[in-house]
């Protein structure tokens, strides 16, 4: 019976067990769950162990958006259960596939239901109309579920309206493997009571009773006490009976193995410029002058986990592909929010998003990629945003705000009406520092002040139009910020790409040597030979196509690498950069 029980729905908690920011330790058929409600109302039911070292997540911290493991502070996102941050490696974005095992959750009859491998729906109980119900206290019993069900068939109780009486007649209306529906009548008073039995383990159960009528105040207390006393008595009887029989062996839960890829030290996943996800435009609105906000919801299933700083490729109806940063705060995983600025000289990207795409349209997007990861081991983080450059930094600032880490978001814009995502900005409180209507010179002066006192352990993140970004990087360098503390993301690469050189590329791991002629990129040549190369912007701005250089001198033409990285010559963006030497050896 218990084997079959795996495919059924069972109650694992009462709705009132999932208190604000609490993590509830649930159990079903020998398996433990960490059950928690996020601030957006979503109920998460996860395997009760962190994928890293097996520590119970039910002792973790529910911050309303994410669940943080006690042991090493790994953070897992609401809804997706994907890992968003690993504190031991603050500079890395965790492999997106580090995702905890989740189980379905449905709230019904004042109870939270789940199942290991659900077939069908949560039982529809005719006696219990949704609405005015009273869920009784769960009564744990040290006995197998079938024994508890047998006893419940003989359970007698008073109807709510005659709770103080004695003479009620209780009849069994229906009985199944894990539930008994009873009806109690005393004169004119009657109450339906359905008693679900949660099979916790082979020898442990919880009785979860639900009555079809609500009650308030003293009457409610009297009803709860009535059932508490009678069910406790029933428990004692079942436990006595169960104790006389040999206890069945406890059920050993089977923990799924992690993927082979995760068993090794994680590396960057390789995939091409693919758009695996289909989303619909749930909302489109003007979030600032010239900036449209888009809320993208999955057509089916749930969206993958993202980290602050991540972007998606949006494949547009006109065939163009553009990158947009996800502006969501942590744990907001039901949709992606992006902001699109209408570019005056748009080649069809932003113009299409503004003029053609409407609410209800379906778009293809890539999985989120994070080449602009946020460290959270900084003693103070400064964000400098220019115009639409706010988008990745907004996601980052919300993440730090949620963790109460010190930060300031300096937002440069032409005027008040140009500040996008006002609701999200408001959430940041005093950390938001708008700088409005400044000339380039005044912007420079302001930046000099903002970046004046660098201390070891501080980090700076910049995103904005090219000239402003250049200015901010230069000012930071002049005022003592080391390259390693300055992180930036360009919208696009405005360098004029010189693709006149021709050279040889050897791919060390693939054991292939390729000729790159003038007019073609390393990436194009690799793809023509059937080598899968991940990419996104394909103009040297986003960092997705980075490769490690083992030998040879790169001719950097991207805007992703910082000066120190350029000088080191150990990394190359294969979409635009080339070789100064006759031969390059790459770790591909």
């Amino acid at each position, binding site marked *: 019976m218990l084997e079959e029980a795996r495919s059924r729905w069972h109650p694992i908690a009462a709705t009132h067990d999932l208190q604000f920011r609490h993590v509830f330790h649930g159990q079903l058929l020998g398996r*433990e769950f960490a059950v928690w409600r996020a601030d957006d109302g979503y109920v998460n039911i996860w395997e*009760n*162990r962190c*994928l*890293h*070292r*097996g*520590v*119970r997540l039910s*002792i973790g911290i529910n911050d309303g958006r994410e669940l943080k493991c*006690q*042991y*090493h*502070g790994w953070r897992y996102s609401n809804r997706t259960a994907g890992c968003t941050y*690993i*504190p*031991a*490696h*603050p*500079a890395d974005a965790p492999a997106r596939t*580090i995702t905890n095992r989740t189980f379905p959750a449905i709230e019904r009859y004042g109870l939270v239901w789940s199942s290991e491998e659900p077939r069908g729906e949560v039982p529809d109980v005719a006696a219990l109309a949704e609405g005015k119900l009273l869920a009784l206290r769960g009564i744990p019993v040290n006995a197998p579920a079938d024994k508890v069900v047998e006893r419940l068939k003989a359970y007698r109780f008073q109807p709510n309206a005659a709770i103080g009486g004695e003479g009620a007649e209780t009849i069994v209306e229906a009985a199944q493997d894990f539930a008994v529906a009873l009806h109690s009548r005393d004169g004119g008073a009657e109450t339906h009571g359905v008693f679900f039995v949660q099979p916790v383990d082979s020898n442990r159960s919880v009785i979860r009773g639900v009555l079809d009528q609500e009650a308030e105040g003293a009457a409610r207390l009297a009803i709860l006490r009535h059932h508490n006393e009678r069910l406790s008595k029933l428990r004692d009887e079942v436990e006595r009976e169960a104790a006389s029989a040999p206890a069945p062996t406890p059920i050993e839960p089977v*923990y799924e*193995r*992690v*993927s*082979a890829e*995760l*068993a*090794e*030290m*994680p590396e960057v996943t390789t995939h091409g410029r693919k758009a695996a996800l289909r989303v619909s435009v749930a909302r489109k609105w003007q979030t600032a002058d010239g900036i449209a906000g888009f809320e993208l919801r999955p057509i089916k299933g749930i969206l993958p986990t993202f980290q602050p700083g991540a972007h998606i490729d949006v494949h547009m109806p006109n065939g163009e592909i553009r990158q947009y940063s996800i502006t969501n705060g942590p744990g907001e995983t039901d949709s992606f929010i992006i902001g699109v600025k209408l570019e005056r000289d748009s080649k069809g990207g932003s113009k299409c998003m503004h003029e053609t795409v409407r609410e209800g349209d379906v778009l293809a997007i890539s999985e989120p990629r994070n080449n602009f990861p946020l460290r*959270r*081991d*900084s*003693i103070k983080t400064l964000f400098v945003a220019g115009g639409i450059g706010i988008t990745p930094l907004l996601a980052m600032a919300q993440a730090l705000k949620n963790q109460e*880490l010190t930060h300031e978001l300096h937002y440069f814009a032409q005027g008040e009406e140009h500040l996008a995502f006002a609701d999200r900005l408001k959430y940041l409180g005093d950390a938001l520092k708008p700088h409005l209507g400044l000339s380039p010179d005044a912007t420079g002066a302001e930046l000099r002040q903002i970046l004046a006192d660098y201390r070891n352990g501080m980090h700076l993140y910049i995103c904005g139009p090219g000239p402003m970004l250049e200015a901010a990087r230069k000012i930071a360098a002049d005022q003592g910020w080391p390259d390693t503390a300055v992180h930036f993301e360009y919208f696009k690469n405005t360098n004029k790409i010189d693709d006149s050189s021709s050279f040889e590329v050897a791919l060390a791991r693939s054991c292939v040597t390729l000729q790159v002629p003038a007019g073609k990129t390393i990436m194009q040549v690799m793809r023509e030979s059937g080598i899968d190369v991940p990419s996104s912007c394909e103009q040297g701005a986003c960092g997705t196509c980075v490769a490690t250089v083992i030998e040879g001198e790169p001719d950097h033409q991207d805007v992703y690498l910082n000066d120190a990285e350029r000088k080191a010559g150990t990394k190359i963006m294969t979409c635009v950069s080339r070789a100064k030497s006759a031969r390059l050896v790459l770790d591909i």
Partner: protein
Amino acid sequence: MATRCVDRELLNDWHIVADQESLSQDAPFATRLLGVDLAVHNRSNKIEVVRSDTGATLKSAERYGFIWVCLDKPWRDIIYIPEANEADRHLVNGGSIAVKVSGLRAVENFLDMGHFPFIHTGWLGEEPHTEVAPYKVEITPQDEVVATECKFYQPIASPTAKEGFIVDYIYKVIRPYTVALYKSNPIQKHRLDVITLFVQPVDEENCVAHPYLCYLKEGMEAATVRSFMQLIFAQDKPILENQVPKRLPLDPRAETPIRADAVSVSYRRWLRDRAVTYGAIPAQA
């Protein structure tokens, strides 16, 4: 869970079963080793360790203030700790602490720096200083797992530390259930304080940790050393007891390692290579 041990590596080795100070003249001290119930008798200061199942007297020894036992014929001697012979050190038993988890999990936790800011907050680590810098791991010619160049920012790294600094560590797994930590002394910077953690495998899912500390005496009281160790271990205990499953999985795909876990990855592989199964969940074929 009193499964019998079949690992020769463990049956033919010495294990601590009691701290000498915990023995009384009046009553035998009851304990368990590798699933075998034992009674430690202290008759007029002569120690005798008897198996409860067969009544046989086992080969026992006294060293470093502990009672040692081997269930079979010992293949090798009790671990030699050179620092225990240096006169200017406190030689302190940190207090034997029972933990409801496999001793192998306790050893792995001892090798782990990543948890310092979260479990030993304000002492061995502190947010936001959470980064675990790359370090080196190798297997020595003596077949020990050694991690060197380990560095971590610690607010109060030792009982006498007054301010935070980056501490250098060396870790060494000496035997499956024995691990040592070498830490730069804050006063005599060229010398190392040593903590050796002897873990008694009570059974597959229970252990008793016996920390043995060799700390330089300069500027330090023995009682302070002991209470610091107890503070730190008390912080680890509730986490260890919430690890699921309780035994250490040796399958590379059972849990998710990161670069910071390089030493634990090597430790698990080293256990697999030596066919240690007691307290472990063997790798799937």
